[in-house]
């Protein structure tokens, strides 16, 4: 457990380092939020300078960094020039939307991948296996970009799903059940795109983990005892195959915030993705850093969680000390 605490601290240190680095990078970058404005002939140079002073952009770098740190302590995470409010509030809303999408998609993906992976593994070597592997390969080769565009096309052509956004106009007036339905209908396609994107890797891992276990002696013995197939697969084989899957779960958690970036942008889901892109195009520094830190935090937390789960699940690791 001391080991986990050490890793946690190391993670925090890492995030801190990242924040310093990004600030430095921003310093090296030519221009800032107000450079675009300066190009506009209608706004006088004095106005721009005045704005600069009021935003505190003319302060030396270390001072700016300290101010930013202080605002983190206040929960504000800096100030967004484009949206004219503290970054924290912005992040919170968008992060909530992103997490809604990604947790749904991740849960769905795992719910599909485990039984499907088990089934494929049990048909190992047959034509089902080979067909599935082929399909998985093609799906894996399809970039997320295209999955998103494809889903969008489906929405446009079929008319069954909305082509963007999280809620319809007039959402606030709907009753509770109708609200849920509206949300679900908007959620469906982005989630589908994400599920399709993550299925190949999940399926591969579940399948290979199970295949290894199915070769093990204790499974053969169980078969020899005549234990029915389904029970064998799910009660005997699956629990033994759990270790690599736990690491994978950690990875899924780690990418909860960052994995949906592209899909959100393509399908106009109001999450962190579009926020980040806007901020980049507008050179809204604090928002960019806020997004990076948030996703970094989730990554560190996810990996740590995976370690902890692994530790709890595998008694062997507990006795011999956590492997490095």
């Amino acid at each position, binding site marked *: 457990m001391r080991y986990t605490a050490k890793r946690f601290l190391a993670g925090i240190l890492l995030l801190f380092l990242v924040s310093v680095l990004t600030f430095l990078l921003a310093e090296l970058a030519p221009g800032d939020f107000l450079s675009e404005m300066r190009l506009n002939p209608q706004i006088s140079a004095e106005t721009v300078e005045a704005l600069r002073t009021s935003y505190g952009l003319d302060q030396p770098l270390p001072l700016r960094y300290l101010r930013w740190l202080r605002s983190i302590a206040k929960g504000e995470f800096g100030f967004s020039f484009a949206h004219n409010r503290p970054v924290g509030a912005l992040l919170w809303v968008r992060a909530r939307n992103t997490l809604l999408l990604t947790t749904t998609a991740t849960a769905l993906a795992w719910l599909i991948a485990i039984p499907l992976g088990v089934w494929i593994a049990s048909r190992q070597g047959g034509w089902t296996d080979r067909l599935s592997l082929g399909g998985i390969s093609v799906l894996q080769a399809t970039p997320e970009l295209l999955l998103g565009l494809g889903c969008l096309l489906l929405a446009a052509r079929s008319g069954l799903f909305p082509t963007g956004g999280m809620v319809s106009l007039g959402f606030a007036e709907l009753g509770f059940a109708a609200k849920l339905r509206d949300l679900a209908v908007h959620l469906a396609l982005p989630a589908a795109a994400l599920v399709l994107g993550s299925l190949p890797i999940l399926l591969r891992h579940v399948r290979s983990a199970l295949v290894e276990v199915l070769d093990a002696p204790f499974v053969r013995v169980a078969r020899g005892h005549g234990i029915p197939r389904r029970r064998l697969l799910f009660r005997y084989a699956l629990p033994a195959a759990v270790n690599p899957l736990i690491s994978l779960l950690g990875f899924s958690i780690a990418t909860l915030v960052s994995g949906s970036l592209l899909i959100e*942008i393509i399908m106009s889901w109001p999450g962190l993705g579009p926020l980040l892109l806007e901020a*980049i195009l507008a*050179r809204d520094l604090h928002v960019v850093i806020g997004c990076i830190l948030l996703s970094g935090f989730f990554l560190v937390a996810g990996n740590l969680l995976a370690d902890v789960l692994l530790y709890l699940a595998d008694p062997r690791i507990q006795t011999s000390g956590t492997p490095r």
Partner: protein
Amino acid sequence: MARKSQSPRVRLWPPAVVLAVVYALAIGADFVAPYDYFAQNRSLPFAPPARLHFVDPAGNWHLIPFIHPLVERPGSYGEYVEDRSRIYPLRFFLEVPSGQRGFQRWNRRLFGVDEPARLCLLGTDGYGRDQLSRLLYGARISLFAGLLAGGLAVALGLALGAVAGYYGGWIDELLMRGAELCMTLPWLYLLLAVRAFLPLHITPVEAFLLLIAIIGLIGWARPARLIRGVVLSAKERDFVRAARGFGGGDLYLLRRHVLPQTFAVALTQIALLVPQYTLAEVTLSFLGLGVAEPVPSWGNMLATLQQYHVMVSYWWMFFPAVALIGVILSYHHLATVVQKRLGVVTL
């Protein structure tokens, strides 16, 4: 259920040939592409792919296929019909009226039709630019960005991983912490972030080189870790110790004994990373942060699909996506073959 699955014999040449052809086409775009990538034709926006015919309206059979020029259907907007009264056969090794193009010194192109007809085998975009030509020119950008970035990342990873593994000590610690840093953050985020801090308006050439540099500088981490592992175990082998006993210096040992053992891993990493990096360029250009108009990249070609009417009505604009999937599949296949042949185990 107990039998270990036999995967089908994978052969090296199919994906290698496909990739070689694709890259050759990209290099030779000046010759193969019927038109320049910036050549507009405002009278033919979003025209569908041209149809090649062998039989003319009179019922005669032609050996060399021909096309009927497209004209707008009278009374409609954006709809095209073929003008059956005119026939333009395919011509090969056409002369280009305006002198040299790009790299090539030879002012001919592989195929095309006489003016004023346009041969657009993959249709046109909103400015009437031939999509096939843009696909080929775009391949130069996207494919080579991926290739160069992959090469850079693996080269860096090889150098740094070998140094870390061979010398150990504080260099090792430092490099591995750095690698962890690069690997901790999600790479798309990292890419976007680094791109964010660089000037937004840069020329396409600058963008191209910048992209390669950024991706390579972030992507060195994974190959470096793997190579470090190989070097660590190679260093301990007896024959390396023996060579040291003969007075072999570090450079000799690295060159003759240690590095050759890393080549298998390096090759596999290249086969795995190049498609990823190609995709990275496409994604960045798609988002508007990469190579900008008018220089085509498969990314900014796909960006037009974000417009509703384009996506719904003009299916030929999806071709860069098809090409991309094909390239990625070939690389994955190649990576599998390389792994099997060289007996490499990757994470």
